[in-house]
């Protein structure tokens, strides 16, 4: 067979392959576990661990208070308050905080775990994240000082604004010509 015929056969075979571009490599279970940090409202994704507000206070004072202030009151025009505003959402000047606005305790854990402390994110241990979450929720009067938060109890915490969200209502504004 002449060379051009061989080339033609090879090209036809390549063309006929049903396989996709074949880009990338399979992800291993280990690397997925390593990189997947998502925590869901039902608690899926939470690692084993535990902490109380009492334990969290120490961590908070050394790693969080520099921005969010000693009692979670924040710093004006700078770092957001974590505490207060419960019941204010329909008021003329609503105060949106972890306590008054955030619908899920798991979101608090997830955000501290992935993003905090701002200058050293993902340096807290799972126990420290449970403890700081407990402390912030305790400052808001949502959990008792002695209550242990862990991967089972955290999703059971009922946040004050749990039912405060509704789906997209738009187009809601109807302008007149």
């Amino acid at each position, binding site marked *: 067979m002449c060379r051009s015929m061989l080339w033609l056969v090879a090209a036809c075979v390549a063309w006929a392959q049903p396989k996709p571009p074949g880009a990338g490599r*399979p992800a291993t279970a280990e690397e997925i576990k390593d990189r997947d940090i*998502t925590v869901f409202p039902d608690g899926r994704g939470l690692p084993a661990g535990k902490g109380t507000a009492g334990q969290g206070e120490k961590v908070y004072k050394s790693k969080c208070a520099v921005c969010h202030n000693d009692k979670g009151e924040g710093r004006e025009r700078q770092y957001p308050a974590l505490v207060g505003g419960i019941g204010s959402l329909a008021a003329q000047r609503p105060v949106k905080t972890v306590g008054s606005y955030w619908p899920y305790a798991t979101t608090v854990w997830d*955000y501290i775990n992935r*993003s905090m402390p701002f200058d050293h*994110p993902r340096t807290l241990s799972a126990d420290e994240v449970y403890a700081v979450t407990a402390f912030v929720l305790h400052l808001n009067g949502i959990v008792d000082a002695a209550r242990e938060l862990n991967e089972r109890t955290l999703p059971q915490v009922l946040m004050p604004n749990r039912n405060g969200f509704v789906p997209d209502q738009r187009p809601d504004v109807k*302008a007149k*010509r």
Partner: protein
Amino acid sequence: MRAYGERSPYETTERVIRELTASPGTGSSRTPHQDLFGTITPSALHFERHHSGVPGIDPATHELLIHGLVDRPLVLTMDDVRRFPSFSRTYFLECGGNSIGEQSGNTQPDVQKSHGLLSCTEWTGVSLALVLREVGLKPEAKWMIAEGADAGRMARSIPIEKVLDDALLVYGQNGEALRPEQGYPLRLLLPGWEGNTNVKWLHRLQFTAEPAMSAKETAYYTELGKDGKAQIFTFVMEARSVITRPSGGQRLAPGGGFHEITGLAWTGKGKITRVEVSVDGGKAWADAVLQEPVLSLAVARFRFPWMWDGKPAVIQSRCTDETGFLQPTHDELIAVRGLNSGYHYNAIKPWQVSADGSVTHV
């Protein structure tokens, strides 16, 4: 000759930077629309909004992990991403918090401060739906959680319908690689949806049956109404327009004469079909000319010839999109939404032209 070009030293327009906290990397910078022409935002002037700074990522080591409710979890390198068939589209990108203060009466003095969290770019990348054929989505996959490789690992949950409709994995911005501030080397692009969902420095896509309820989709980017309830997952940017010239802070030669009124209109629901301009405070309106071609989900440039009589005047624009949506006035908007929803404010913005030619916000 210069190996990488710079603008003329006489041209000095730039973004204005506003940090939200004393920690750098938490704020925004805004596009100077008052100084720009046409529809494309130069990459160096594209607005920025960061939540945990700008990571410096070596593309040779960057990986995108796709996992969750898929048949074949996959890791893609940047070389892998670029092997897929590419295409380019021009889309606007607008922060969900653009003009956030205008609603509660904190009106900004110039269009850069009031509307500068909007830009428009020719993006190049690959169809996410095409890439997902490699992993095989399971039928239970209803949401995609997109996560960035910024310090805070910012994450948003995206409904699967949008993912399969027109979502892009983008690596090109106006013909060259993405700027670091725009997500280098890889970002998610969701045409017409609020900027925050267009996750930058994209390194993980997780397919799930339900949303994650991440901080940025619950505590932030939700819209608190008058009744104390907040709308959640308000993704689409509704139609709006603004006059960029003459606009706040600019000055016309006093005494009247010809001036071109020009500005931008855009909608997250497709094409702008009409822009009208009023030069008498909103009593009479006349059609502006839309620069062709008007692209779907991109900004449209409009122009309106104005013979100014030299007397004080209030000028403003309003737009209509292909769904028939008409841009509301400030009063019409707050009558429905109150003063505190903040995000997605899209009302008409009037500018006051005084007899001395100065232009100020109303």
